[in-house]
Structure formats: C-alpha cells, structure tokens
C-alpha cells in the first residue's frame, strides 16, 4: 500500500494528505516533482495547493514536471491515481482526465463545507461508498468550476465517469446547490477505466471528528483498498 504523495513547488496540502492516508492504513511517502520513477509505488496522489504558482494556467506548468511521466505510466498500468483540488486541475491539464477547471461562477474564492452526492461507485475513489450517498466535505478553491465541450460532457455522462456531484443536504442536485457553476454539478470525475480520479473538494480535511466531518474517510478508504488490489 505504498502511495506517492507528489510535492510540487507550491503544493500545500501534502502533509494533510499523508496524515489522512495513514489514518486509513496506507503507507504514504512524499515524492518531489523532479523524481520521474514511481515504480516502487502502488498508487499516487496529487495534493492541493498552487503548483508552480498556478502561472500561465492552473496545472499548465506542473503537467510537464518530470514526475508526470511516472504518473502517466501509473495511470496506463491501471494503478490508482487521485488528484485533489489543484491535483485535479493538473490531471485535466495532463489529459489524464477529461475537461478543465475555470474560475468559480461568482468570481469568489469558496472555502466552506459542501455536500456531495456519490453518483458512481465504479472508481478507485468511490468503490466503498453507496450510490446516492451524501457526503459533507470542504471545498477550497477559486478555479473549481468544471467545464468541458458538450460532446466530451455527453461522453463522460454516458460512460458513468461522473463520480461526485454537488448537492443539497438531502442529495438534491440543482443549480441552487451548485457552489461554483460546475457543468452538471460535477465535483469529481474519473477516466474511462476508473483508476484515475480527480475531485475539487478535500476529503483529507474531513477525515476526523475534530475536523467537523469524517465523510471523507469513505473516499480515502476506497482509494487505500484499490492500492491493495493492484
């Protein structure tokens, strides 16, 4: 259950991710973005932050960091790869996930708990959750609005690649409960094989009662169990 937690210049959630992954029985290790050999690991997490200062576009420079060759190899081999917040943006820029993230609809930085509805359990992030389950997890982003071309969006929906949607406390997915204007309320999306997943909210910040929610644990536990299966 060795999992690489990648550190880019500007990452700032890597220690939280390491702590939370240990809490679900995984063996995380910080890996600097200059390392390109991840063959010793069963999976990887790209944590939140502002990799390379978000210069040019979020994730645009990070996708060319040497470590991304290792991430791409891992993704191709079917190993679990998770991008949280800025990590999600990087995976989209790298073309490992469909779509992109742009500025929030109201041009405000959003830092608060949101509700998420599990739309598919067919991914390394949601396998231990139940379809329709509602999770309360913090969102912390300015460029968190998911977008994609209409044809890509239709394909992602048809393939069941949407794993999490923003919703109300009772699981209602509508515009009122969409915090940032994401297309179809998409908060998390997987690749076609379900082994690469990205989400904007932070499950590691909802992993112990003292943090106000433990709802992120089911996602981290899913991910940890996928590390074992590889």
């Amino acid at each position, binding site marked *: 259950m060795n999992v690489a937690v990648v550190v880019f210049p500007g990452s700032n959630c890597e220690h939280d991710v390491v702590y939370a992954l240990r809490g679900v029985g995984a063996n995380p290790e910080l890996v600097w973005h200059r390392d390109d050999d991840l063959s010793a690991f069963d999976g990887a997490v790209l944590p939140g932050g502002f990799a390379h200062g978000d210069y040019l576009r979020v994730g645009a420079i990070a996708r060319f960091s040497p470590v991304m060759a290792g991430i791409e190899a891992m993704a191709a081999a079917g190993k679990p790869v998770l991008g949280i917040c800025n990590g999600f943006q990087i995976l989209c820029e790298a073309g490992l996930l469909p779509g992109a993230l742009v500025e929030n609809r109201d041009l405000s930085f959003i830092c608060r708990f949101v509700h998420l509805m599990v739309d598919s359990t067919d991914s390394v992030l949601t396998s231990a959750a139940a379809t329709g389950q509602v999770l309360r997890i913090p969102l912390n982003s300015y460029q968190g609005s998911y*977008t994609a071309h209409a044809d890509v969006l239709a394909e992602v929906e048809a393939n069941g690649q949407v794993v999490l949607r923003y919703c109300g406390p009772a699981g209602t997915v509508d515009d009122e409960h969409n915090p940032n204007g994401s297309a179809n309320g998409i908060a998390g999306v997987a690749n076609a094989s379900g082994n690469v997943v990205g989400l904007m909210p932070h499950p590691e910040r909802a992993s112990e009662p003292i943090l106000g929610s433990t709802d992120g644990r089911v996602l981290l536990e899913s991910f940890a169990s996928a590390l074992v299966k590889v």
Partner: protein
Amino acid sequence: MRLHIEITRRPGIADPEAVTVSRALRELGFDTVVGVGMGRSLVIDVDETDPEAAREAADRMCRQLLANPVLEDYTIEVVAEEVAG
C-alpha cells in the same frame, strides 16, 4: 524575430471575468457594449529569420503549453522586424 500571441477563451466556455467587466462597463453608461472577450497576450522573441519557421514554432508552443485546447483559442502574428537586444 518577434511573435505576438493572443490567447482567448473559446466561445461557449464560461468566462465570468469577462461577464463581470461587461456588466461594469454597462453600469458606467457604456450601453453600446454587448460583449467582452478577455485573454492573454504574449510577446516572444525568437532567434529565427524565417517567418514560416517562427510561426510553426509558435504554433507548437501554443499547442504544447501556452493554450489549453479545452478552454482556449489562439492567434499568432509574426513581426518581421529585427528585434533589438
């Protein structure tokens, strides 16, 4: 040789900043404003004398790094004059 590259948000992709600027202009009385497009402008100097080669290089720069095809379109202008320095 100097390259002028303009990168703009693709039609159909939400641009809340441009919408906000448009609304602000109209509130200031510029009521003929019907739309605003915003983007990024880059000026890149290259050690190259062939305009076509310079344009081709700029195109590759845009495709690999400068523009995200999911979100953005780009235009390239090759400025032929010798660039000082």
